[in-house]
């Protein structure tokens, strides 16, 4: 790939006192610039004490490595400092309000981290004999029971590794069920407002994707949907509450119509956090729904995963669920069903979706979260999430256009548009202004059905004082956007970086360090300045 860009800050950069605020190191007090490990590490440094290799002959069958890999090493203190400095360039839920619509950035309790690290969970191999992992199987089963009860469904597939993997699991269950009755069908209907993973999943499973139209008030157009149903439609994928932040009032009628036409109903459960303990998808005729444990049940997002996407299933789809899974016998023991015993126990399974048993480390965290809340706390959490979103909606809608504000209360997220912004100012500008105000921006330009969409999801984690500060910022930014404040166009002004050139990144991709490592004898990090 191309050589790294030659402009910009480098560890070797010398004195720069532009605007009077420059420093010799490039650092600014607590804001410390940090080189790449390739610029400060070398192949000789090691931060772990290990025995020197013996000279014994190897049994690597002629495959012994001869060339250098080119991996830089750092000592332990340098490592701690490198990643600590990097961490400080991140926004995070621990730092402040993170109103990223549809992504559900809620508090991550540290009890859950502690539980996941108990040796009996952390230090257990997935293929140990079953008798040595009964506790792990009980965790899976206990969580499964909660998920089934909270959703009013028949069964749950626990192995999918994230939401999109869960979607795939649900759609494959639908396909397996239809094939089993000799009626494969070709089309999956997806609303335009759906998450991008929905059409990607349906296409991956071999279906043709067609759009379902929406009504002016932001919900699925039931009549249009009914008109499109027919013998070629395998099913629908509907998000409920939907991505406009509204509850699909006609969900049961939609399910009934799809079922009457011989299809099945997939519900994207990304927004299940709005209705936990208040509405059971099973009561609405849903056949399959994934649950993002990293959204609704607060397993940490970790800068982009890992997630976990168990899929609850109706009686019609449960027989096709993937392997392996855990079941509780009448005598109370939990049993692992894998390829070996599937023939007798679960003959219609569509197969295996991944190695081993799913995201155990997320199961322990989610179960600790669920047990802490209990049935009452979970219900309170969904209520507070919806209350907080409506409070923002009604506190801002005079300044920020709320396209579906008249459609009734929103669920857990409030949707705004860029309708009254001055010419030349966009949703992006307002969002970047949020950064300067000390907030993570809301979700931008999604759902696609609203022009310049801004989707604000505060979650139940926020106090009223926190919400009031967010509202203050949103109102100020809305006024600046309406009045054409040019300074918004170059926001953020106070972040570790100004707006980044994404076009350059895509046009001339630099996707890996291509230069040499720091030569031996390169000053250590602390000697290079900054500490």
């Amino acid at each position: 790939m191309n050589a790294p860009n030659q402009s910009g800050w480098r560890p070797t950069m010398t004195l720069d006192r532009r605007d009077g605020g420059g420093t010799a190191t490039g650092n600014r007090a607590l804001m410390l610039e940090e080189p790449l490990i390739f610029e400060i590490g070398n192949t000789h440094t090691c931060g772990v004490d290990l025995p020197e290799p013996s000279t014994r002959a190897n049994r690597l069958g002629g495959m012994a490595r001869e060339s250098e890999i080119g991996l830089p090493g750092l000592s332990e203190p340098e490592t701690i400092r490198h990643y600590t400095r990097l961490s400080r360039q991140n926004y995070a839920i621990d730092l402040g309000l993170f109103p990223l619509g549809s992504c559900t950035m809620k508090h991550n309790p540290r009890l859950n981290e502690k539980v996941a690290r108990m040796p009996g969970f952390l230090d257990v191999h997935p293929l140990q004999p079953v008798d040595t992992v009964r506790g792990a199987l009980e965790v899976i089963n206990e969580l499964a029971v909660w998920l089934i009860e909270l959703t009013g469904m028949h069964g749950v597939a626990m192995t999918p590794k994230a939401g999109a993997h869960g979607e795939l699991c649900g759609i494959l269950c639908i396909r397996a069920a239809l094939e089993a009755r000799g009626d494969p069908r070709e089309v999956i209907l997806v609303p335009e407002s759906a998450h991008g993973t929905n059409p990607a999943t349906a296409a991956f499973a071999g279906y043709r994707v067609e759009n379902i139209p929406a009504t002016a008030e932001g919900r699925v157009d039931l009549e249009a949907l009914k008109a499109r149903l027919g013998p070629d439609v395998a099913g629908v994928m509907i998000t409920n509450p939907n991505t406009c932040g509204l509850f699909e009032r006609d969900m049961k009628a939609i399910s009934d119509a799809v079922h009457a036409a011989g299809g099945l109903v997939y519900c994207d459960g990304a927004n299940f956090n709005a209705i936990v303990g208040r509405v059971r998808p099973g009561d609405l005729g849903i056949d399959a729904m994934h649950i993002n444990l990293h959204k609704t049940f607060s397993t940490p997002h970790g800068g982009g995963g890992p997630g976990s996407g168990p899929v609850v299933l109706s009686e019609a789809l449960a027989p096709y669920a993937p392997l392996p899974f855990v079941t509780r016998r009448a005598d109370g023991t939990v049993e692992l069903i894998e390829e070996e015993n599937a023939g007798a126990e679960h003959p219609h399974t569509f197969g295996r979706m991944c190695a081993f048993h799913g995201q155990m480390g997320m199961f322990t965290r989610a179960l600790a979260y669920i047990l802490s809340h209990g049935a009452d706390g979970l219900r309170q959490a969904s209520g507070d999430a919806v209350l907080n979103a409506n409070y923002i909606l009604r506190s801002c809608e005079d300044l920020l256009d709320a396209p579906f504000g008249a459609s009734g209360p929103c669920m857990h997220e409030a949707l705004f548009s860029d309708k009254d912004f001055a010419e030349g100012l966009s949703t992006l500008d307002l969002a970047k202004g949020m950064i300067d105000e000390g907030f993570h921006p809301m979700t931008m330009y999604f759902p696609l059905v609203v022009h310049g969409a801004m989707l604000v999801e505060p979650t139940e984690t926020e106090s009223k004082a926190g919400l009031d500060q967010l509202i203050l910022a949103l109102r100020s930014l809305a006024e600046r956007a309406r009045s054409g404040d040019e300074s918004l166009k170059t926001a953020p002004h106070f972040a570790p970086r100004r707006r980044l050139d994404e076009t350059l990144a895509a046009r001339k991709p630099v996707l890996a360090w291509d230069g040499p490592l720091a030569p031996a004898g390169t000053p250590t990090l602390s000697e290079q300045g900054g500490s």
Partner: protein
Amino acid sequence: MRYLPLTDADRGEMLSVIGASDVDALFADVADEHYLKAPIGVLPLHASEMAVEQHMRRLSKKNLAAADAAFFCGAGAYRHHVPATVDHLIQRGEFLTAYTPYQPEIAQGTLQMLFEFQSQVARLYGCAVANASMYDGSTACWEAIAMAGRVTKRRRAVVSGGLHPHYVQTAKTMAKFTGDEIADALPTLQAAPDNDALIARIDDQTSCVVVQYPDILGRLPDLAAIAEAAHAKGALLIAVNTEPVALGAIKSPGELGADIVVGEGQSLGVGLQFGGPYLGLFAVRDPKHVRQMPGRLCGETVDAEGKRGFVLTLSTREQHIRREKATSNICTNSGLCALAFTIHLTLLGEAGLRKLAAENHRLACLAADRLSKIPGVEVLNDSFFNEVTVMLPTDARPIVRELADKKVLAGVSLGRLYPGADALARGLVVAVTETASEEDIETLASALEEAVQ
């Protein structure tokens, strides 16, 4: 409830701003017969931190932790010592509680870490470009097969008998729905993998050849010969590695001619965790294949002041832009596991990884020699890194169970991996990492000796 900051007074004030009588009124769009008016009765109510911790600890104690046993399980998941620094750093809230870095101005920490991670993985695999991670090795393997189909416009994957059976099953499940053909095979119990038989199965309809290196039995196939044969037929070579520590001792798949290299990164930083979350690694040798890759990519750029910075890039391959035309439906990946991996590998560096690999290999050689001295027990492998297959005189599964009762986790039986394949039933895959002491090896050997008598 300790996680919910609103007071009843707050709720009342907020409801009056909204103009609603109570919270239930906000759910007016839910039909009355579908709205639950009270907490679900069969489920317990909230519990204190102490009570939850005690409950979970009780469950955890029903498992036999690796540290409490002589431990030799591998077969796709390996126990390595993870420095305390790794777990401390990944628990920093700025990493742990951040989202996918879609707002690069306030996510440079995650983005720079991903750029470093991609660079490390590319070097380790001998490739030009690695992505920002997949779910795990098995799903990365299927994604590689799907990608090879897009590149070659062919639909037949020839899979070596040495590929982890869960990876094979995962690919076969997916292929059933996409219309691809997965031509798989059982492993043959030979001292070296049967390259000739694999090569003979490649034809001009083959999109890719999938070879695990080291393979499920611990053997080291000669990837270069397979690469040459695959390329001669216009097929890609996909190399699968489930033990990244091995690459500190053996040649990288990229330098041997593999076109796509995928694997499981769990060994470095992540821990066993009963199978997940793990870390899928995905890399391509030739940069021209980048636009067919699945998953996120982080790239270097500059900001408005000319300072270096990093962004997610080439996202026109991805589902949130391309929707049904995306290269994959993957969204959330394994960000925090990638962080653990990259920190562990930075602590090790080149010198540390090589020493760690050498120590694993030394102990595995020691174990192989010791186990082969047991009457009736035979070591299958000519070549291996830290994992060998031993053939026992009888079915290995009951012996593994029997040894577990004595707190010896002897390995993974081929009977567990290949249920129903009677010809394999006597095989036991034994992994030996730096966490096994020479005393543990002796414990395993004596226990096995007693069990097979």
